[in-house]
C-alpha cells in the first residue's frame, strides 16, 4: 500500500471521531446486558456498516455513512437501562457522530479541528442537560421537562429552516 493510499484510508476512517463513536457504541452495547452478546454485536455491525459506506466509490454512499451509527446508537440507547452514565454516553455518542461527520474524506483535511465551533455548542447543550438530569430528583418529571425543551427546540429549528435569512446580517450602506 502506497503512502498516498494509506493517507486516503486513514482519512476515510476519520480516527478521532470514529474512536469516540466506537466507545459510545460499545459502552452502550455492553450496558444493555442483552443475551448472547447482542449488544456488542449490534454495536460492531453499526460500526462496520458505517465504515464500509465510507469506502464505497460513489459520493452519495459516503454522505450517508453516519446513518448506521445513529441507528445503532438509537437502538442501543433504547435497550440500555436508565442510568446517569448511560445518558452521558448517549449524548457523547451524538456529539461524536457530528465530529465524525466533520471528518469528511471528500473535503479538505482538518475538518475535525475546523468543526470545533459547530460541535462545541451541541456538546455544551448535552453538558447542561446531563447536569440537570444529575441534579434534578429522579422520576418521570425530568423526562417531561426534557421532552418539552426538545419540542420547543424542534419548533425553533423548523422556524429557522423556513427562514434561513434570519442568520443573514445586512451590510451597512456605508461599509
Amino acid at each position, binding site marked *: 500500500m502506497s503512502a498516498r493510499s494509506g493517507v486516503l484510508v486513514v482519512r476515510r476512517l476519520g480516527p478521532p471521531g470514529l474512536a469516540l463513536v466506537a466507545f459510545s457504541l460499545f459502552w452502550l452495547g455492553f450496558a444493555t446486558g442483552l443475551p448472547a452478546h447482542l449488544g456488542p454485536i449490534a454495536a460492531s455491525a453499526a460500526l462496520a456498516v458505517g465504515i464500509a459506506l465510507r469506502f464505497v466509490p460513489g459520493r452519495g454512499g459516503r*454522505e*450517508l455513512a453516519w*446513518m448506521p451509527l*445513529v441507528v445503532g*446508537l*438509537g437502538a442501543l*440507547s*433504547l435497550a*440500555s437501562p*436508565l442510568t446517569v452514565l448511560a*445518558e*452521558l454516553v*448517549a*449524548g457523547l455518542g*451524538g*456529539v461524536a*457522530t*457530528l465530529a465524525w*461527520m*466533520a471528518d*469528511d474524506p471528500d*473535503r*479538505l483535511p*482538518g*475538518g*475535525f479541528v*475546523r*468543526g470545533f*465551533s*459547530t*460541535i*462545541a*455548542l*451541541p*456538546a455544551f*447543550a*448535552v453538558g447542561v*442537560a*446531563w447536569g440537570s*438530569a444529575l441534579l434534578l430528583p429522579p422520576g*418521570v418529571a*425530568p*423526562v417531561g421537562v*426534557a*421532552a418539552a425543551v*426538545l*419540542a420547543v*427546540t*424542534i419548533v*425553533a*429549528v423548523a422556524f*429557522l*429552516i423556513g427562514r*434561513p*435569512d434570519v*442568520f*443573514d*446580517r*445586512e*451590510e451597512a450602506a456605508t461599509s
Partner: protein
Amino acid sequence: MNAYPEGGSRALVWRSRTLQLLAAAGILLVAGVLLRDPIPLFLALPFLVAPAAAALSGPRANPRATLTWAETGTGSEVRVLGTVRPDGSVRAGDLVVGIDTPASLVERSPPSQEVRDGTVVFQNDWWAPEPMIALVPPPSVVWRDPVGLVERPVDGIAGDLVVTRYPPELLRLGSARLDRTTVLPGETRSRRIGSTGEFFGIREAEPDDPPRRLNWPASARTGHLLANEYALERTGDVVLLLDARPTELGTVVDERLLSITRAAVEGVAESFLRIKSRVGLAVYGEFLDAVPLSTGRPHSFRIRNALLRAHLAETPGPSERCAVALRRYFPPGVTTIVFSSLADESARTLVSHVRRRGFRVVVLSPSPLPLLSVRRLAREDEELAERLTRLQRRSQVARAWQDAPSIDWEEYRSLAGFVDFLRRPATRRVA
C-alpha cells in the same frame, strides 16, 4: 456567467443532511417520550442543536472570493488549474469548489483540491477524445460548515473558460486559396477598388490624391494628371453554415457531433480570416442565426461567441427556411461550406435548397461512425453490422455528391481530406 450572481441567492442554504439529521432526532425524540426513556433524548439533543450551531458558526453574509483559472493542457489532454482566494471572512478550508465536466470532455482523474497559503488550489484533468470547443462555466464555490449541514454561496466568482482543440491540419488550410475552388464550388472575387493592392487601372487624378498615387509617365504622355487605381487583395468570401438540427442519431451523438463541428468551424474560420478573407457564419437549428461577412480580428471573436451560443435545436426547422434566410444575410454565389452529418434526408435537402438559392456549396460531413462504434453488438453480428453501417454512410455521402462536393470527415483529428480538396478541387473527388 456566475453560479451565484450578485444579488442572487443571499440566504444560507440548509443541506439535505440537515433534514436527515433532524428526522433522526425526531424519531429518537418520539421513541424516548413514548417509552419514557430519557437516554434517546440525550442522543437526539446534539442533532437538534447542530444545524443552528452550524449556521451561527459561519459568515452572516455571503463571503467574497477571487477566482483565477486557466487551461494548460496540450494535445488531447485538458488540464484546468485555478485558485480561489477568499476574503478574510471565511477560511479557505471551508470552501467547496465544484466544476461540471463539459459534455465533450472525459474526466481522466478525480479533481483535486488543496489549501496553500489561505488559497484553495484546484486542478481538473480531462481528456478531449475529439476536436471540440467548449465553454466551461465558472466553478460553483460555496462556503460549507465542516459538518456539512449548511452552505452559503460565495460572491465574486466570475469568468468563463473556453477550451478549444482543433484538428492540426487547419494550420495548412491558410495556404489554400478560395479562388482555386472555382471549378466545383466556385468563389466570388472581390472587385473593390482602393488605394492598395494589385494594379487595377488608371483614372483622372483628383485634387486630394497623394503624389505617390499619381502615374507620372502616363500624365506626361497625356498632358494631364492621371492616378493609379488598385484592386484590394482578397481571396474571396466564404460562409460557414452549421446544421444544428437534431437527427435520427439521437441527442447524445448529435451533441458530440455538434461539439466536433463547432471546433472545425472555428478552426476553418480562423484559417480563412488569417488570409484576409471575409468569413460569415450561419447556424441553423429551428431558425437561422447569422454573423454577416466580415474580416479582421474582432470578427473572429464574433464568430467564436456565436459558436459558443450554438446548441442543438429541439425542433428542426425546414430546409427551405434556411436557404431563404441565408439569402437575407449573404450574397448569392459565395462559397458556402455546409457542416452537416448528412444523417437523414433533411440534411441532404438542406444542401440542395442552399445550392438552388445560388450558393456554391461544399459539404464537410463529420461522420457519426466513430461515435456509433462504441455500441456493443453481438459478436457474430458485429462485423456485418459495421459493414452495413459503412455502406449506408457511403451511400449517404454519394447521394449528397449529386448536389455538392462532399467530404466525409471520419478521422476527427485530421482535416487532410478537406484541405486537399480545397487545394485541388478539380482533380480530387473525396467520398
